[in-house]
């Protein structure tokens, strides 16, 4: 090790508290980025692997545009086109109390058609004899009524084996499924893909899912050659209206695309933590350079070149970055295990069903997070390193030179800050839809505001002088002056604290506004007294089909005076999925719609007459549709254009909802079923009592969920809060990183002044006065940061609410600015800064002046 390197290593070691905090900052930043990446990627991978495993080697898939196909389609293809390589599939979801929280995918297949498709089902004539399917006999698979084959690991988790029965709940009906065998594929991906899958004979699955005579899709195996193309053309021509054929990946891609915006938001939040970490590094390295300016000047005098000093400081940063990244990677993996549960739950709540068994340690993501940490560290260290390289070889170095240049920078920084904000504004105005543009704008706005903080600090500290003088006397005056004379070191600390606190404010206001909007929406939407649906894999959206007998018995209840029915069909198109709802709406529920424009009465009248459809706000935003436009709806009779009558506010799904009157729906769809039911009670009836009476009417072995208006409202808000759990966790993590940064910055600032404070002690300042001086100073810095953070946070929340959120999910939110978030911000900054002052104050007041004077 060269002597210069040795000198720098020893310097870092002597300032190890600072070193540790820097490493912690990078580590936390890297950990948060990695954890979010791993969690979302694991969810995606879980979805992908499961989709691929289920698709097997199929190249194409025939689907019904309305979500299902008639069995006769298959017969037609096989008889008329002689299509042998085709496999019918029936799919649905089940839940089991043996596997709480896990959505089980029921996969009904015809083992005799499976030969070329799914190797884990068929290995030729012997059926399940292939790849690890020990002891599964195709005979018993076909002949055991509703017999299931499942992955060995899932069976083990459920505590069942061949010969046992697995209790499940499908669309509100309880079943007991005999386990006829377990699969133990040797290939890892197949093993992961099979997690949570219940493989059944197609007839059993149809019975279980209430889909007799229906198929979910038909898998095809078409050669890639011209013959395949020709065959595809023939199939397309032969398909009935409302059915289409597409390459297998298309559907999975469209589904996976649903979570793009959700994922981008999480990634942006995680990057925020890294930016805070970077701030921390910048602070730490700047301090280490400022502290060594004399030393660097001496070295320059002795003939050490600028590039050697630059290299020296950057090398130090690189070591900090490497150590931080290494620790961060480990921490990130641990954090990811916790986050993957939250992320998966949100995806399951809002988008699609996915079972994730664990965190997949993707080396690319690990490398990316590590490189990001190291890169951010070097980037943050570059300005101070350049500053070090600029050190003049003077025989005596004046610290005031640095502070003077720092003070000169204040107006310049403010100017650049204003330019940044203008650029940010331009990004917002430039594109009204692009989400990346919104985040770029957000970055520019935050950086611009951060650059304005030094000027803000100067103004606020100057303004508080009279107060400091009257409240703190000489100590107060000195505290304020100390901040201004060492602005080169205090300003970055204030900027970091402002950004951290303002982000907390921004996110806080955003979540508060979001929740407020949802509450108002729920209050307006939930007009009925009781809501009835089936338990399903997605908590926020009802699925399945209610038993008509149960519906009839509920509607006939003496307390029920009116009802509305909903039929929900989830449709998936290349541009995204949406939910088509057939609504038989009682006039009592008409006021539930909050239209964005137009005359509500007229819209409702035309809707009820079946003249058109209603589109939810996210749907209209996503597809750039407005009232008067036409929407092409896929129906069993083929695509049909329907005019959009109105756009209504809806926070139920960011993918979008299209409402159609039952009358219109029945014209195109031969589907008399009902997904959920809303009941209006006679005046004086008590919802909770009626709910109990209704549930008593449900036949044994069946389950429905009947909830009073209040209970559903609570449940909906619970889902909302759960959705924001990840955001809240990230907000906390980002704040911890920032807090560590500020702690280290302010602590270093005060410790660096030990000589100056030693002189004051020597002059006769008492330990108590010294403590007061240090605490007044850090407290003042905290107060200034908190006050500056409030407007910055409000600006951030405006960008997040009106741009980021709108462009991510298509929702319009009403901004709600509660005083508590703002008070919290100031308190947070103040307490954080005071805490940062406690140790230096205590240490300085206990150090003998002579020792402090001696310094290094």
């Amino acid at each position, binding site marked *: 090790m060269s002597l210069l390197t*040795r000198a720098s290593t020893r310097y870092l070691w002597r300032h190890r508290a600072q070193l540790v905090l820097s490493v912690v900052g990078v580590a936390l930043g890297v950990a948060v980025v990695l954890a979010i990446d791993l969690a979302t990627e694991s969810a995606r991978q879980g979805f992908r692997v499961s989709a691929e495993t289920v698709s097997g080697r199929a190249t194409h898939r025939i689907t019904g545009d309305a979500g299902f196909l008639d069995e006769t389609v298959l017969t037609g293809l096989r008889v008329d086109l002689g299509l042998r390589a085709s496999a019918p599939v029936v799919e649905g979801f089940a839940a089991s109390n043996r596997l709480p929280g896990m959505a089980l995918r029921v996969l009904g297949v015809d083992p005799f058609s499976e030969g070329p498709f799914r190797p884990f089902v068929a290995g030729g004539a012997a059926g399940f004899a292939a790849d690890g399917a020990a002891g599964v006999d195709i005979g018993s698979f076909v002949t055991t009524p509703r017999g299931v084959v499942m992955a060995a690991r899932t069976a083990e988790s459920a505590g069942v084996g061949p010969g046992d029965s697995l209790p499940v709940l499908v669309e509100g009906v309880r079943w007991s499924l005999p386990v006829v065998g377990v699969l133990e594929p040797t290939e890892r991906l197949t093993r992961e893909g099979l997690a949570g899958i219940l493989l059944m004979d197609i007839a059993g699955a149809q019975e279980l899912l209430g889909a007799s005579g229906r198929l979910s899709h038909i898998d095809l195996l078409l050669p890639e050659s011209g013959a395949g193309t020709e065959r595809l053309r023939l199939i397309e021509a032969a398909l009935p209206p409302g059915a289409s054929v597409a390459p297998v990946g298309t559907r999975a891609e469209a589904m996976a695309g649903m979570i793009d915006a959700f994922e981008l938001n999480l990634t942006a939040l995680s990057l925020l933590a890294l930016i805070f970490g970077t701030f921390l590094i910048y602070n730490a390295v700047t301090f280490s350079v400022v502290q060594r300016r004399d030393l660097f000047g001496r070295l320059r*005098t002795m003939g*050490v070149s600028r590039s050697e000093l630059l290299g020296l400081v950057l090398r130090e940063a690189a070591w900090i970055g490497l150590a931080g990244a290494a620790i961060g990677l480990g921490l990130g993996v641990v954090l990811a295990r916790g986050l993957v549960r939250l992320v998966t739950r949100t995806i399951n709540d809002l988008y699609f069903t996915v079972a994730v068994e664990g965190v997949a340690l993707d080396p690319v993501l690990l490398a990316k997070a590590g490189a990001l940490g190291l890169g951010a560290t070097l980037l943050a260290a570059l300005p101070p390193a350049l500053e070090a390289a600029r050190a003049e070889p003077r025989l005596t170095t004046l610290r005031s030179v640095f502070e003077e240049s720092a003070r000169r920078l204040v107006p310049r920084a403010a100017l650049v800050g204003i330019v940044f904000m203008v650029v940010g504004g331009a990004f917002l105005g430039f594109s009204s839809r692009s989400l990346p543009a919104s985040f770029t704008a957000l970055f520019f706005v935050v950086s611009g505001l951060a650059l304005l903080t030094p000027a803000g600090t100067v103004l606020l500290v100057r303004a508080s002088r009279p107060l400091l003088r009257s409240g703190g006397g000489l100590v107060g005056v000195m505290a304020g002056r100390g901040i201004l004379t060492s602005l080169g070191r205090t300003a970055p600390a204030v900027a970091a604290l402002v950004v951290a606190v303002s982000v907390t404010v921004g996110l806080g206001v955003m979540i508060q506004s979001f929740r407020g909007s949802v509450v108002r929406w729920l209050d307006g939407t939930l007009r009925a007294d009781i809501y009835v649906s089936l338990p399903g894999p997605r908590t926020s959206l009802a699925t399945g089909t209610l038993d008509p007998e149960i519906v009839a018995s509920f509607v006939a209840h003496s307390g029920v005076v009116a009802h509305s029915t909903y039929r929900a069909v989830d449709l998936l198109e290349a541009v995204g999925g949406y939910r088509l709802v057939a609504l038989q709406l009682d006039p009592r529920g008409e006021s539930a719609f909050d239209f964005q424009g137009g005359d509500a009465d007229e819209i409702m009248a035309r809707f009820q007459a079946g003249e058109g459809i209603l589109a939810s706000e996210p749907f209209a935003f996503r597809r750039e549709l407005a009232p008067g436009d036409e929407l092409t709806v896929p129906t069993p009779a083929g695509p049909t254009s329907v005019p959009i009558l109105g756009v209504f506010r809806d926070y139920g799904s960011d993918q979008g909802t299209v409402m159609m009157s039952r009358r219109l729906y029945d014209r195109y769809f031969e589907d008399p079923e009902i997904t959920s039911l809303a009941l209006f009670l006679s005046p004086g009836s008590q919802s909770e009592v009626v709910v109990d009476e209704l549930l008593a009417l449900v036949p044994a072995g069946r389950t429905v969920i009947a909830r009073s208006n209040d209970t559903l409202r609570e449940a909906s808000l619970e889902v909302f809060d759960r959705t924001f759990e990840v955001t809240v966790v990230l907000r906390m993590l980002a704040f911890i990183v920032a807090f560590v940064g500020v702690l280290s910055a302010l602590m270093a600032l005060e410790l660096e002044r030990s000589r100056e404070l030693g002189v004051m002690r020597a002059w006769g300042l008492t330990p108590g006065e010294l403590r007061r001086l240090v605490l007044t100073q850090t407290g003042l810095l905290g107060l200034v940061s908190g006050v500056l953070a409030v407007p910055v946070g409000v600006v951030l929340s405006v960008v997040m609410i009106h741009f980021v959120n709108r462009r991510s999910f298509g929702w319009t939110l009403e901004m709600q600015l509660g005083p508590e978030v703002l008070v919290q911000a100031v308190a947070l900054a103040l307490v954080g800064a005071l805490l940062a002052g406690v140790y230096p104050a205590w240490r300085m007041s206990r150090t003998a002046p002579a020792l402090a004077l001696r310094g290094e």
Partner: protein
Amino acid sequence: MDAARGGGPAEAGVHISDLRKSYREGGRTHAVLAGASARIASGERIAVLGPSGSGKSTLLNLISGIDLPDSGSVSVAGTELTALTERERTLFRRRRVGFVFQFFNLLPTLTVWENLLLPLELTGRTGSAGHARAASLLERVGLPDRAHAFPDRLSGGEQQRVAIARALIHEPALLLADEPTGNLDEDMGAAVADLLDELVRTQGSTLLVVTHSLDLAARMDRVLHLDHGRLLERPQ
């Protein structure tokens, strides 16, 4: 009498000619050097006397190539410093110049031994010969048993002795000393002056000492006075 007229061969020693340097201070220009000239022969020992603020430190900055004059030239050991780039001047300083400061300026995170070796390392001369030279110099300054101590464990006099050893270890052509005894008591100052004198003589380096101390100045071959921005053999 102008100092430029004295001295021996300019090529081997220091030759400064008509140096002018001024600083701007609060909108006013303050001329520190106003045509300073001097010839210092190789191996000559020179003291520069002058009141505070007379430009002594500025002169050292210019002679060492740390700073550039507004006009005039500086030649050290045959190298015209004013014609060099910043990097070339840095590398020149590294090889040919040694410094002794009033406040010792040892590197606090390196031991005495490591401080001594630093100039050798910078010039790529850390071989066994370098180590032997460091050991012998440490012996000569009387601190062989403090090799592994950090500077903050040493007294002021000890630190300055280490600083002198460090300044001479790479056998510079020119040794610049800025108030080397200014921070030491009388006895210690005399001891340090003896040491400086002895080592420079043995090594044959040119020595230029900026000082207030008449005692130290009296030990030198010649004394120059910095007066109103010019170097004179006698104060006016």
